[in-house]
């Protein structure tokens, strides 16, 4: 292993490099399109002696998460990756990881849930896990994929947090798209110290994890998870700052704002759509519309304060969501809603469902929708393209 260098490869490859550089010791994973090449690459690292770790080639995703829960509980840094149906299948164990306070990290290649079978991008798979105490980031490019994975380990294992973390990357648009990204190699070591668990299974100090607890005691445990997650906002910001300094990046924090300083209209989104929106923002600015973009990098903890702050003064927000909570609204909309309510702020908002089922989202699409929204021609909850159906 060596130091920093640029690699041109897929998002999945970026995950694998991050896992290698994080010196993860146990990986358990199961193949699923479009996550598979992550696992393949890690297997290659290990089998060809480039990485000193054990890989458990489990028989299902449920067992993948279970196995890394087991290894992490023994005090060993662990990893898995999955997507859509695999994520759904391990759903129970996601609760287990967070409630047991095991800071595992997982990459999720966001893909549409079937039926029908559809292997393309959709955030809905991961959204179903947004309640249960996982830190969740969404990357927009392969550099972020790599960086967020390392930052996730750092934050998850922080003794003030001790919660698992999920790094989301959209199917194919990131997982299978080659882009340049810089890896940190051995320099990671200084940023991410050796794993020092707050609790572990050890015959020298027998601890019993998870027997029956009373309601009152259980509620306290949940409250502590809540508090730890709140605290994570600060800890993530810290971790990002240090990452920036060490590795010469310039991440803003839990969100990324683009041309928001004087914006009248804000686009709010995540992942690749959020980045594509920056291009749309430029186009719209050229047309004289004062548009800015807010991209959520960390969806959990939900960066309420940061978002509120940047949206202050904006006259309209257009949310672009690659998933929906059927019978309610988009998930970002829900959290923007509670945030504004809590901060006693009112805003004019459009919630746009776009890119669902892996449909392509181009900056032109975004431009068109935003212009319509500004004109007031857009339904508050709008399925992009639905007029034609």
């Amino acid at each position, binding site marked *: 292993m060596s130091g920093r260098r640029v690699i041109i490869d897929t998002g999945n490859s970026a995950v694998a490099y991050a896992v290698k550089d994080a010196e993860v*010791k*146990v990986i*358990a994973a199961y193949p699923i399109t479009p996550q598979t090449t992550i696992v393949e690459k890690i297997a290659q690292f290990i089998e060809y002696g480039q990485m000193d*770790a*054990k890989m*458990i*080639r*489990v*028989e*299902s995703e*449920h*067992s993948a998460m*279970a*196995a*890394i*829960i*087991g*290894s*992490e*509980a*023994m*005090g*060993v840094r*662990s990893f898995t990756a999955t997507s859509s149906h695999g994520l759904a299948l391990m759903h*129970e*164990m996601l609760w*287990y990881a967070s409630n047991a306070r095991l800071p595992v990290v997982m990459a999720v290649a966001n893909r549409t849930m079937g039926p029908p079978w559809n292997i393309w991008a959709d955030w809905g798979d991961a959204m179903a896990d947004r309640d249960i105490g996982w830190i969740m980031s969404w990357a927009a490019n392969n550099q972020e994929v790599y960086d967020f994975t390392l930052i996730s380990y750092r934050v998850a294992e922080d003794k003030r947090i001790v919660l698992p973390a999920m790094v989301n990357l959209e199917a194919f648009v990131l997982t299978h798209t080659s882009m340049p990204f810089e890896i940190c190699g051995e320099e990671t070591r200084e940023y991410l110290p050796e794993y020092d668990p707050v609790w572990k*299974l*050890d*015959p020298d*100090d*027998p*601890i*019993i*994890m*998870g*027997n*029956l*607890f*009373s309601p009152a*005691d259980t509620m306290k445990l949940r409250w502590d998870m809540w508090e730890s997650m709140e605290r994570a906002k600060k800890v993530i910001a810290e971790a990002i700052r240090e990452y920036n300094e060490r590795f010469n990046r310039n991440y803003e924090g839990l969100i990324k704002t683009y041309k928001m300083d004087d914006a009248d209209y804000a686009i709010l989104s995540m992942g690749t759509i959020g980045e594509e929106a920056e291009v749309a923002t430029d186009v719209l600015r050229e047309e004289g519309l004062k548009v800015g973009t807010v991209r959520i990098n960390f969806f959990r903890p939900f960066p309420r304060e940061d978002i509120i702050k940047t949206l202050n003064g904006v006259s309209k927000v257009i949310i672009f969501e690659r998933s929906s909570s059927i019978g309610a609204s988009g998930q970002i909309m829900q959290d923007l809603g509670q945030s504004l309510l809590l901060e006693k702020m009112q805003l004019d908002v459009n919630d746009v469902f776009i890119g669902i089922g892996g449909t392509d989202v181009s900056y032109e699409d975004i431009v068109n929708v935003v212009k319509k929204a500004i004109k007031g021609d857009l339904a508050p909850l709008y399925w992009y393209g639905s007029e034609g159906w």
Partner: protein
Amino acid sequence: MVTVKDLAKMEDLLLKGNAACAGCPIGVALRTTLKALGRKTIMFVPACCTSVVQGIGPGAAISVPLFNTAFETAASVASGAAAAAEILGKDVTILAWAGDGGTYDIGLQAISGAAERGDNVLYICYNNQMYSNTGIQRSGATPLGAWTTTTWTGKTEHMKDMGMILIAHRVPYVAATSVGYPDDIYEKVKKAKEKKGFRYIDILAPCPPGWRFPSDMTIRLGRLAIETGFWLLYEYEDGELRFNGYTKLVAEGKREFKPVEEFLRLQDRFRHLFEPKRRDDILEEIQRWIKERFEWYLSLAKI
């Protein structure tokens, strides 16, 4: 062979004042198992009566590290732990300890996966032949004819043969034993401990409320199960199958199996086979099944 006197002297790692029912077979099975394994053991326990027996946190009636895990994950969590132990270079026994529901039914796939991969896990099923923790429902291990709260008129299928399924996986060690014979449990656990790879032990565990018998009969029924051939004592080791104890005597022609009725009659879960009307059809089928199954095992033991 360990003696009763030896066993009596060994330290107990299952603690008294726990939440088990009076006469609970887990007490016997787990005490004995932990005597064989000692303190350098880490337990992985899925949802089952053993989860409850530990009592309410933040205390627990057990003296080794224990991870209470999701119902279907004893083997898979243990697989991860075994990998970690290897990474850490730790000399511990990774023990998955599960009920029959967590083994024969919902946990079977994780077991099969770990077995195929040869993960370094000792998996022990204490088999009370039903879901006792949730109040006596049928499991894959429930025998034909047994009443449970999901088979009110008696189960209509035979129990699954988990031991044979593990043998089909060709793991280094498979054994069946019974709470009726703590020394046999001890010996088998001890032997399994010394091997590497995936090892499986199935301990028949008569449960007073589940099988509906008075709490003093736990051990007695554990013996009768063997003496009637309802359950077999055997070991499959490095490709070879051998019988033990009473089962061995029968295999060698030195004893005969007692009529299974002697075993069934003592349990109210089978009462409807005797009253109000005797169900000869089912009783004969059970007896036939015992014979056929034993012959099947015999044929393998010969090779």
